[in-house]
């Protein structure tokens, strides 16, 4: 089948969404299934058929999504009902809508990858080489690096798994409780 000329092609819109919590690995296919389930559940098959939701790419913790022009609002509402992607708790924060993928990629560059502001968190210890979860960090080129640190919160020892500005995500040390806690640097400074 030959490609349609540009004037006959249907117009599309691209959405940029940030995947939270930062550093959670999300597969494109899993995210597509989650989106499809959420949109179908909220709007029904007919609207979803008209919407044509697609996951274009997942880059640096951001998802680039596509839908037909004019259905962005419905798509955005459906996206905000996503809470789980393959048993992993996530939330999609829509950042921008655009007519081209390139402009969304520029946005990702402008916002930058996850940045670790290492000096802000007061950590009690800095030694852990036992293969436990690591902190997602980024250098000026956007290349992730690894670091592991411990901190104390509410008389328990936690391991910092992600740090971005004032935001600090931690997981309790040990093998029993592996749930994330979402804290700030000020919480960790408090004794």
């Amino acid at each position: 089948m030959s490609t349609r000329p540009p004037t006959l092609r249907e117009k599309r819109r691209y959405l940029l969404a940030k995947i939270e919590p930062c550093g959670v690995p999300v597969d494109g296919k899993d995210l597509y299934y989650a989106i499809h389930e959420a949109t179908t559940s909220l709007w029904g098959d007919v609207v979803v058929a008209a919407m044509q939701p697609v996951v274009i790419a997942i880059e640096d913790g951001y998802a680039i999504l596509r839908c037909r022009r004019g259905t962005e609002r419905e798509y955005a509402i459906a996206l905000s009902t996503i809470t789980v992607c393959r048993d992993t708790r996530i939330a999609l924060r829509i950042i921008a809508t655009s007519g081209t993928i390139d402009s969304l990629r520029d946005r990702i560059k402008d916002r930058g990858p996850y940045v670790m502001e290492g000096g802000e968190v007061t950590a009690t210890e800095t030694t852990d080489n036992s293969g436990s979860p690591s902190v997602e960090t980024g250098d000026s080129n956007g290349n992730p690096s690894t670091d592991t640190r411990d901190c104390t919160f509410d008389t328990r020892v936690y391991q910092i798994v992600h740090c971005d500005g004032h935001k600090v995500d931690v997981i309790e040390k040990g093998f029993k409780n592996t749930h994330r806690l979402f804290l700030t640097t000020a919480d960790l400074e408090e004794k």
Partner: protein
Amino acid sequence: MKITDACVYPYPVGNSSVRRLALEARQLGYDSIVAVDTPACEAEGVIVLSGLIIAGMPVKDVTNQIKRGKGHGVVVSVQARDNGFNRAVCGLKGVHILRDIACADKYAFDHVAAKIAADNGTALDLDLSPIISQRGHTREKVIHRYFDILVLHNRFEFPLTISSGARSVLDMRPVREVSGFCSLLGMNIQDTEDALAGVGKILAPKEMAVKVLS
């Protein structure tokens, strides 16, 4: 307080500290939040109001609980139950919000309760968490119940509040998306703005019906 999330559960009930919830709320477009069982403060530029939720108690005990929280600037919310209980609670002074109406039975909030709520300035909370996290029949039921409440709201004009019921920063939603959810319920932008400002309105001192000038 123009844009308030009427109920969030910080650590230890939830998995996010109150500061982190406040930080997230600021980024999502809120200027204040009601945090349950947390002292009132200002964190990350967001006003954090102390919230008290009274659940599973008879009216007499509710009155006692309200007396304890009186004068401390606490936002008192009572979990809805049967119709008689809701009518009684809506008429109580000191009850700010009647919440979890979607979990109560079908006729729990009728026109009489709506009239009492409007007269007493008691707000009804629209919790968005079931709309976000539930699917299928459960969500349909909640949306239907909210439609019903909005019909009464348009008739009697009792205040409304909107809450995310967030136990985590992942449960919070931007104001733009809250507006989207409200549009599903048939609320226009003005209604949504009024509902988001609902907590500020119910906490503001009531204007006197007649003002004596001299």
